[in-house]
């Protein structure tokens, strides 16, 4: 059976249950589904956040995500991968990103989901602008995220 791959960049929210069904419906070779949802928090380092606005590089963002999904599928025996990244204005409590990985066994699903999230954080061309008490400011990249992504390329 072939692997299901879904990649979407959209303004609208997503429905996790529906996305999981799309990966599992009608097949009995899936033993494990891992989902990661990234959610907009209401504060960062003690400062209140009113909203985030996400900008992306159309064309490149889809290509980068597809490339990482392919890498994940070549490294782990996955039956499916879904990656949905929202753009536009997102308020605290709302979803930002969804990564789903399905496999026969749990280790592959967990590892692939972590790998994909680490790469999305460090390499996918998205940028967050934050609305806070002082107006708006661009969120700064964290070195920590580069380190997290780098651990997958170590020999």
């Amino acid at each position: 059976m072939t692997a299901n791959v879904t990649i979407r960049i959209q303004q609208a929210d997503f429905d996790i249950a529906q996305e999981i069904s799309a990966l599992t419906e009608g097949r009995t070779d899936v033993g494990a589904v891992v989902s990661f949802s990234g959610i907009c928090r209401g504060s960062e380092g003690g400062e209140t956040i009113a909203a985030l606005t996400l900008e992306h590089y159309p064309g490149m963002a889809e290509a980068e995500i597809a490339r990482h999904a392919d890498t994940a599928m070549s490294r782990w025996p996955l039956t499916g991968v879904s990656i949905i990244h929202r753009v536009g204005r997102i308020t605290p409590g709302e979803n930002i990103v969804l990564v789903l990985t399905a496999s026969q066994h749990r280790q592959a699903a967990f590892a692939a989901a972590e790998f994909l999230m680490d790469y999305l954080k460090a390499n996918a061309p998205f940028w967050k602008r934050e609305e806070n008490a002082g107006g708006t400011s661009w969120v700064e990249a964290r070195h920590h995220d580069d380190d997290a992504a780098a651990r997958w390329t170590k020999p």
Partner: protein
Amino acid sequence: MKVKYFAWVRERIGKAEETVEPPPGVRTIEDLMAWLAKRGETYAYAFETPRVIRAAIDHTHVKSDAAIAGAREIAFFPPMTGG
């Protein structure tokens, strides 16, 4: 060639994209940033610290010493903060 700007690079320059014709001596991403920085105050501000700016050629991440010959679309942006 088409040049695109994202996030604060776009905000500082004041435009999202444009078409430029750099002279033959502009061979790499680094050269192109230096050349763009001379187009005016907004560009100088955007490219004031070139080492923090990331670049892509035709939708692929590249380093600052990458050659720009043959590129259709070059993009400049700050480190990414998706996910």
